[in-house]
């Protein structure tokens, strides 16, 4: 039987699914059963890929360290190392097929075993297969299934580990966010406090300013009111004085009028008196004159008489 290096899961899977030669197997005889063929191929596979597995295992370990260094250290060095690692992974991966990486890792990690042990494992699987060789193709599958179970177990372990690390990382992330939110809240509160304080100070200064302004306005208003009062007082006084003057003038006018009337009355009276007096005087004068006249006449008569007497 030609050697066949299993390079992918499909080949590995089909290796044990064949129903060919399920009859009993004699150790050492030609490998006819599917189980035996599969076990033999696995053994050879393990042997041929052992070296690659070890190298791959080491590269993974180195890669993890490189990745840690890449995160912590300088980007340039880490980038170069990371690039080298990725190249190695790519080469190894292509060599053994990514599908069988898990198997390779499992094989190496389960034992760090040497070729002989791996080969013995395959041989054990062969022995188990031989026991169930009578028409039980599943026995072959059991042997291979064991390896697959271990692979599954390994993968599940990796996945569980990843999910546990994720949980831890989420807790740390939440703590950082809480701390950041708390610090932000403090900063905002401080800012608001300072803003409120500034506003209060400003409002206070404004109130003082307004109060001062109001005080000044009040003082001015008070002075204005006082001035207006004084002005009114002066006006009232003037009006009063004016009234008094007017009244006085009126009184004087009345008085004057009265006086004039009085004078006029007096004059009339005087006139009347004069007239009467004149009349009296006149009468008296007339009387006098008459008397004088009489007297004169007398005289005249006397004179005449006297003349007459003379002439005689």
């Amino acid at each position: 039987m030609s050697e066949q290096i299993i390079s992918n899961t499909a080949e590995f899977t089909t290796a044990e699914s064949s129903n060919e030669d399920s009859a009993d197997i004699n150790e050492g005889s030609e490998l006819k059963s599917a189980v035996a063929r599969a076990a033999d191929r696995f053994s050879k596979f393990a042997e041929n890929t052992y070296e690659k597995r070890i190298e791959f295992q080491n590269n993974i370990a180195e890669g993890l360290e490189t990745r840690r260094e890449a995160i912590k250290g300088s980007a340039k060095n880490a980038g170069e190392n990371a690039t080298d690692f990725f190249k190695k992974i790519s080469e190894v991966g292509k060599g053994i097929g990514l599908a069988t990486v898990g198997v390779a890792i499992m094989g190496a990690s389960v034992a760090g075993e040497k070729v002989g042990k791996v080969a013995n494992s395959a041989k054990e699987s062969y022995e188990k297969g031989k026991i169930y060789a009578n028409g039980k193709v599943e026995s072959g599958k059991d042997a291979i299934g064991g390896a697959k179970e271990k692979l599954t177990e390994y993968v599940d372990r990796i996945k569980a580990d990843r999910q546990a690390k994720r949980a831890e990382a989420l807790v740390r992330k939440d703590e950082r966010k809480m701390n950041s939110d708390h610090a932000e809240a403090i900063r905002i509160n401080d800012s608001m406090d300072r803003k409120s304080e500034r506003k209060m100070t400003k409002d206070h200064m404004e109130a003082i300013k307004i109060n001062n302004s109001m005080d000044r306005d009040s003082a001015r208003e008070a002075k204005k009111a006082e001035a207006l009062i004084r002005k009114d007082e002066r006006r009232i006084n003037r009006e009063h004085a004016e009234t008094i003057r007017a009244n006085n003038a009126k009184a004087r006018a009345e008085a004057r009028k009265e006086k004039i009337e009085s004078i006029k009355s007096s004059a009339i009276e005087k006139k009347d008196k004069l007239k009467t007096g004149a009349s009296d005087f006149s009468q008296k004068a007339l009387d006098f004159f008459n008397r004088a006249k009489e007297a004169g006449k007398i005289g005249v008569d006397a004179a005449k008489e006297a003349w007459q007497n003379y002439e005689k």
Partner: protein
Amino acid sequence: MNKNYTITAADLTSMGIILTDDKMTSLLDHLNEELNERVGTSLLEELSDEQIEEYNELSKTAEGDQIGEWLSSKIPEFSQIIQDEIDIILGDIAEKADDLSKS
């Protein structure tokens, strides 16, 4: 911001995610882009407003890993933040590994 961190094919295959090369490449591109965005966001959240302004100015002229070095000097938990984002996204992948393998 230089990428000092990457999700690799080995990360995925160790979780049982088996894909063809082109699908693997496409998935890795998507995951690393997502990772880079998450890391960037988480790091910037740690900066104050003034530091963010400083970062914006620096990003216009920075060369090499100047930005990475500047961030690591300003953020005490720089390395831990990056590692946490890697662990979170790998945990997400682990949870969806079966679905990813079927794609």
